């Protein structure tokens, strides 16, 4: 596969690992947070953690769109899905996210019409094919997916599809990043910046990370070679005493971002005064609501939802995991009461969630880590 295989090239990876081992040997142990769930997934999927020197630890951040949805919003989505004549469309990951009462999958088994789509445009098409149904798209995601929801809203208005609406849960990446940087006892040496989000917003919005908080940030792609190269770039910044925003993912990310996508976001959405994040609590101006001009397509205005804040289960430590304060396996219920099949917390649901990624892919890496690391040092 072009544009994929060259970034999974074992030879290139080996060279980078040798350089990383060399750079790491001259520095104290480093903790880098990968902000993006896509990175977390790739790190485990390709066994990258087991290849890095032991002095480099990757901490998993809050950038998994499914993981940050609070239980109350899931209950709201279930309430909409159970309303008369509604067909709820969502991404597959959302089906198994536990709410206070049930998941969408359980609502489906009880008779709600819940369908998996891969794009909001599919939901709009479904609405046009089924004029007697009220089709609701459950929108989740960062600035990565928000433009496609915006396009869908524009098309719904243009084509006057009035049996379609969006239950909007889009969030933005900078506020939670700030929240993490503001948290007491922050113990991070740098950030692997988001990849896909940055294709939309660009790299300029991250300037505050080195500027105000004195931590380097490198936006990175999602292939193993991308991630290794970004780790090396962070190590080199630290070695050189530099602290800046660098862009490893140049093949798709620019400084200014995608102007057209940003315009779409401005047109279709407004920033919410505050929004609840799973485990992180309420964060000011951290989410998007549908703009007043698109009110007819706003499911929050069309349906009555409980709108209740549901406290996370006591045993669940998703918040600490999302902030990088706890490693997935350090959570009390990890892998026992909370597994991908019977998740208590959201981090165990999505394949981008740190707990699910660690459970599915990484559980064994502690054993293979030592010999592979030794080989890396020789390189």
């Amino acid at each position, binding site marked *: 596969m072009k544009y994929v295989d060259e970034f999974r090239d074992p030879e290139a990876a080996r060279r980078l690992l040798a350089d990383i081992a060399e750079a790491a040997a001259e520095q104290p142990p480093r903790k880098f947070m990968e902000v993006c769930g896509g990175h977390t997934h790739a790190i485990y999927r*390709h066994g990258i953690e087991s290849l890095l020197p032991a002095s480099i630890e990757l901490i998993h951040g809050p950038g998994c769109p499914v993981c940050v949805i609070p239980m109350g919003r899931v209950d709201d989505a279930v309430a909409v899905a159970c309303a008369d004549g509604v067909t709820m469309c969502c991404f597959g990951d959302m089906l198994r996210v536990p709410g206070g009462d049930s998941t969408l999958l*359980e609502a489906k088994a009880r008779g709600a019409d819940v369908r998996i789509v*891969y794009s909001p445009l599919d939901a709009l098409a479904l609405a046009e094919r089924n004029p007697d149904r009220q089709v609701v798209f459950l929108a989740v995601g960062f600035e990565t997916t928000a433009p496609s929801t915006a396009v869908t809203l524009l098309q719904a208005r243009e084509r006057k599809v009035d049996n379609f609406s969006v239950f909007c849960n889009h969030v933005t990446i900078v506020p939670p990043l700030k929240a993490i940087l503001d948290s007491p006892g922050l113990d991070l040496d740098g950030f692997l910046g988001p990849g896909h989000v940055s294709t939309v917003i660009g790299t300029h919005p991250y300037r505050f990370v080195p500027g105000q908080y004195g931590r380097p940030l490198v936006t990175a792609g999602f292939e193993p070679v991308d991630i290794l190269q970004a780790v090396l770039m962070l190590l080199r910044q630290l070695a050189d005493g530099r602290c800046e925003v660098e862009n490893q993912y140049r093949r798709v990310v620019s400084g200014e971002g995608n102007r057209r996508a940003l315009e779409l976001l401005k047109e279709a959405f407004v920033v919410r005064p505050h929004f609840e994040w799973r485990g992180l609590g309420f964060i000011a101006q951290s989410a998007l609501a549908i703009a007043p001009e698109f009110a007819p397509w706003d499911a929050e205005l069309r349906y009555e939802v409980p709108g209740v804040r549901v406290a996370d289960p006591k045993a669940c430590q998703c918040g600490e995991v999302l902030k990088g304060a706890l490693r997935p396996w350090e959570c009390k219920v990890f892998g026992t009461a909370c597994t991908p*099949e019977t998740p208590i917390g959201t981090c165990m649901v999505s394949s981008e969630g740190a707990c699910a990624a660690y459970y599915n892919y*990484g559980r064994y890496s*502690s054993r293979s880590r030592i010999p592979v690391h030794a080989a890396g040092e020789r390189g």
Partner: protein
Amino acid sequence: MPFEDDLEARQAVLARVESWRRRAPKLADDTITMAHGAGGRAGQSLLEAVIRPAFSNPVLDALDDGAVLEVGDGRRLAVTTDAFVVTPRRFNGGSIGDLAVNGTINDLAAMGAEPVALTVSLVLEEGLEVEELRAIVDDVARAASAAGVPVVTGDTKVVERGAADGCYITTTGVGFVRPGTHLAAAAVRPSDALVLSGMIGDHGVAVMVARGDLALAADVASDTAPLHQLVSALLDAVPATRWLRDPTRGGVASTCNELAAASGLGVELDERALPVRGAVSGACELLGLDPLYIANEGKMLAVVPATDAETAVQAMRGCEAGADACVVGAVTDEHPGLVLVRTGFGGTRIVDMLVGDPLPRIC
């Protein structure tokens, strides 16, 4: 260094997780959800809580894909039955009719049995067009005749509109286990080789494309094919073959997990050795799926002694359905019960049982 100190704590957690993982799954649900049909732990829990207690007997309790019955003279009768509910009923490379024949023949083949006969039972929904039924039945007949296995009896039922989705097919197959063949997970030994008969993921991706709801266009045909001749060739060439399974729902990953659980040994796959068509890996990349979990309908996974691995590959390659056969991994005693993949550049990751099938009703 702080990270080295963690090792012990982390391993204690991992040991706890493993012991938890090996516990029999408990049924926690009050209603059936799609997860119960997805071939993962939810399905196992249903089997253990509802199905097995009702029928429990020594043959059934082995919970294999089929049963072997001693019928005198040292002859062993193999019986297997399977229901087919795939949607859509027709896709590139085949139809529900092909699957109903080949799926059951392959279950017999995986037991080391030569198929003798099939039965076919149809559940039809009011409103199904006769033309479509005729085409499906023709597919059943053609597939059975191509495999050289006759359909000897059957049944047809019709239900009201809405009580079923068009057409469901159940086939039962009987055959005789080849004399001298003793396939069992208990026979599997550390260092044995895993031989796969060809490309993975074709069927699952072909059905995905045929559903049309992914806006995907890929030229991938289902691999549905009968494998009894391939197995015959393999068992002739390598009589010491330990274990066979056709990796259908849940893909090669789930089959390897079954092997690891049943043998009490570990499995290590080599990612670079896994044969995947470009169009299949491309579609999986786009959709965030792993080809290891995608269904196959014409592949066999064999465990053979390492010294026989090359012979097994050549025997499979001698058959049309095994042209791309290759060694994909090995059995190990290093991580009992676990399946690991060695990634392209030497990292490892766990490949667990499938949770939450992205595509229900694939066969």
